[in-house]
């Protein structure tokens, strides 16, 4: 053991490079430990993520190769415009997402509270948090953008320098909006702490209104016009404003297009490569300048902003009783009263947790916007039916992510409050049933609305709408049954974080079973309908001359598929629920 020294004599302030190295080492250790824990504890989840990401990447790649071949053949100059539109909208989204992530990381995290009490520079803490925000904000772009850009290179027959330049181009580009987001975040918190929410809301509002206006003007045209030359001209005119030479999105788009250019012999063109390097240099230079600016701003204003935020008095929030609450708890009838009270409690928690209903609203809102614009395109009857079933599957998949993320952990989250529920005169079954009803009713209303909207926009006949609505009902029942049943069967009563609960083995299993269930329901329901419509369009002799396919495409096949779907739906509801109920009754807390 060392002898004690004079207080503080061994400590010294570190140079900037040493601080940076320390944080890099910290990040590397944290990433390594996280990956190691995932490999050791969540192999199923990790494999699933890897496989699904691979499939997703491959599917996107195939789709983009087709799209670029089509666009190249019909409208060659549209690609530059599409790149500009895509990258400029991405710039806006990255500014917001990096800004929000940095706000959470720099001002609201316990880590920043620790770091600000250590002898470390404010700009080093910013750089540490900036890298984290850039990764979280940019990985989606890499996952979505890389298949698109690789497909573009393949479709154009680009030479190897194009593929080498892709990653530096993408990273340099992502850094620019991320640094801008950081600058806005630090400045807002330091100088407009009280107005930061208003300023942010106004900026988001302007971006959303612009996006919706653009989408509306582009997609709400006469149906017969879609994909025609006039349609493309109209679209060009509306997107031309994204081709501003001062925008980083234009530098990226131009860099990519130049890098993909080849000479007549198919070899890389030196002049084009030079141009591509010029755009890459432009991106890198701007990215570095903005990072320097953001670092300087952090040095000047981070600690002051942090103090401003800490000094805010949290507003006391008085909450009124909602209409549904009054209806559910207003009745004096004893029948189902504990169940109703439990549902009201969950409803209040859901309403007051912005992260839950905001995600719900964003996903279902975007889906609604997409369904609403389905009218803009012409569809053949058969394809309209197929799109209707695909939309049903998408609605189910989105619902399954919500049931896994929010409903599955509900029983586990009661663990810390079990002493309250355990002392109440409530049978444990009622706790499980209340979660099931909450999930089922909460899921059915938006999902059924969306499915009916999609079918109406596609112009599907009443019988198909009825079939889709019935399948939607079964999906809501089954998905709620799986999430609540598995949640009760595999509760993690000591865990308080819903995201950790849903990302464990039980949550992953719930997501996998939910996805399988959706696939089975949609395929079993869609196949006979599809064959029936094909047979009616092309004639029975072309599709299914005889035997099983003819039977499947006929009325009997349709009836059998409805019966099969019903059995699968009811089994997916009842079996997990019964297993969960039995396990929850025996549970010792």
């Amino acid at each position: 053991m060392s002898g004690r020294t004079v207080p503080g004599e061994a400590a010294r302030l570190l140079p900037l490079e040493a601080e940076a190295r320390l944080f890099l080492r910290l990040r590397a250790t944290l990433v390594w430990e996280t990956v190691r824990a995932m490999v050791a504890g969540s192999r199923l989840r990790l494999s699933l993520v890897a496989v699904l990401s691979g499939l997703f990447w491959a599917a996107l790649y195939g789709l983009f190769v087709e799209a670029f071949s089509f666009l190249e053949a019909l409208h060659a100059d549209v690609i530059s415009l599409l790149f500009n539109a895509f990258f400029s909208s991405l710039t806006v989204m990255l500014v917001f997402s990096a800004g929000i992530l940095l706000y959470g990381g720099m001002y609201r995290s316990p880590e920043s509270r620790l770091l600000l009490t250590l002898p470390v520079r404010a700009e080093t803490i910013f750089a540490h948090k900036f890298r984290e925000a850039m990764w979280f904000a940019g990985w989606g772009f890499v996952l979505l953008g890389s298949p698109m850009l690789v497909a573009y290179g393949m479709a154009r027959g680009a030479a190897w320098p194009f593929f080498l330049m892709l990653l530096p181009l993408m990273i340099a580009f992502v850094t620019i909006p991320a640094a801008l987001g950081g600058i806005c975040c630090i400045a807002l918190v330091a100088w407009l702490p009280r107005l930061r929410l208003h300023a942010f809301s106004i900026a988001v509002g302007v971006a959303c209104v612009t996006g919706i206006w653009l989408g509306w003007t582009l997609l709400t045209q006469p149906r017969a016009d879609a994909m025609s030359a006039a349609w493309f001209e109209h679209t060009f005119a509306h997107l031309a404003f994204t081709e501003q030479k001062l925008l980083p999105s234009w530098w990226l788009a131009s860099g990519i297009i130049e890098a993909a250019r080849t000479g007549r012999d198919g070899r890389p063109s030196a002049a084009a490569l030079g141009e591509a390097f010029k755009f890459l240099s432009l991106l890198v230079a701007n990215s570095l300048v903005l990072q320097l600016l953001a670092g300087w701003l952090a040095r000047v204003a981070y600690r002051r902003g942090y103090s401003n935020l800490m000094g805010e008095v949290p507003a006391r929030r008085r909450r009124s009783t909602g209409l549904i609450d009054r209806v559910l708890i207003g009745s004096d009838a004893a029948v189902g009263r504990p169940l109703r009270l439990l549902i009201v409690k969950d409803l209040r928690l859901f309403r007051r947790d912005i992260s839950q209903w905001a995600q719900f609203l964003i996903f279902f809102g975007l889906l609604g916007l997409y369904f609403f614009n389905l009218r803009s395109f012409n569809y053949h009857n058969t394809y309209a039916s197929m799109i209707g079933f695909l939309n049903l599957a998408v609605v189910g998949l989105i619902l399954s992510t919500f049931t896994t993320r929010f409903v599955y952990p509900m029983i586990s989250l009661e663990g810390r409050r079990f002493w309250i529920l355990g002392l109440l005169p409530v049978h444990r079954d009622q706790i499980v049933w209340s979660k099931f009803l909450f999930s089922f009713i909460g899921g059915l209303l938006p999902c059924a609305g969306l499915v009916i909207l999609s079918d109406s926009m596609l112009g599907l006949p009443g019988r198909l709408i009825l079939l889709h609505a019935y399948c939607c009902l079964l999906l809501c029942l089954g998905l709620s049954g799986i999430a609540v049943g598995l949640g009760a069967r595999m509760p993690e009563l000591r865990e308080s974080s819903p995201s950790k609960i849903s990302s464990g083995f039980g949550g992953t299993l719930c997501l996998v079973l939910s996805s399988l269930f959706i696939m089975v329901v949609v395929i079993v329901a869609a196949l006979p309908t599809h064959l029936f419509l094909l047979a009616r369009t092309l004639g029975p002799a072309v599709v299914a001359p005889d035997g099983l396919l003819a039977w499947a495409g006929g009325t009997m096949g349709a009836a059998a598929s409805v019966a099969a779907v019903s059995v699968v739906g009811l089994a997916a509801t009842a079996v997990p629920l019964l297993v969960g109920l039995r396990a929850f009754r025996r549970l010792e807390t």
Partner: protein
Amino acid sequence: MIEFDHVTRTYGAKTAVTDLSLAIPRGELFALLGPNGAGKTTSIKMLVGLLHPSRGSIRICGHDVVSEPRAAHLHVGYVPDEPCLYDKLTGREFLWFIADMFGIPRHLARSRIDREIECFELGEFADDLSESYSLGMKQRLVFAASLLHDPSVLVLDEPMVGLDPRSVRIVKDLLAARTREGMTVFMSTHTLAMAEEMADRVGIMVRGRLRFLGTVMELREQVALEATSLEQLYLQLTSPHGLRP
């Protein structure tokens, strides 16, 4: 070592700390007492630089905590009321991170880390990820981390929360030993018995103002009551009806 010079801190229209002036010399253990919302935590957050005073200044070892935060932090060890650790670091890795942050040379850091692990009896779990620690284990680790650089000033916000009786004894002995060696301790606590047992001086804050500053003996003389325990004196002083002699 610690100087509060006419420090005021407001939260909007509310004043949390009003005109606080206080000087704590080297080697003193100072306990700040007061009811909830009296301004103790605000004072501590200003002392460690998380909050800036609205008026006035705070100096640690001669360094202003607002204009020279890094120089001031070099002399401070801080144990917050809620320990913050990296879940995916082991206790030992966390101690290394803190030692490196304070620029302690590697050979010295190694011996200091071993010293603190032994002192706080962390050996059994020092190489486990801290996500598996109980509140008491986390608190002991934060204590160890705060002492690695042998700070001139140790700031403690409700330090005994979550500690078992044995750990409390360890901390008490350690604080007594370190203050004898010259370390200054600034501690906020609700545990009156601890303040009475350990503090050289106590400060009692009520609604943002320092109502009393002195030794427990002086407090007894000032209140001049039959009350003999610090608890009775404290309750008299912090009563909503004011002092009742």
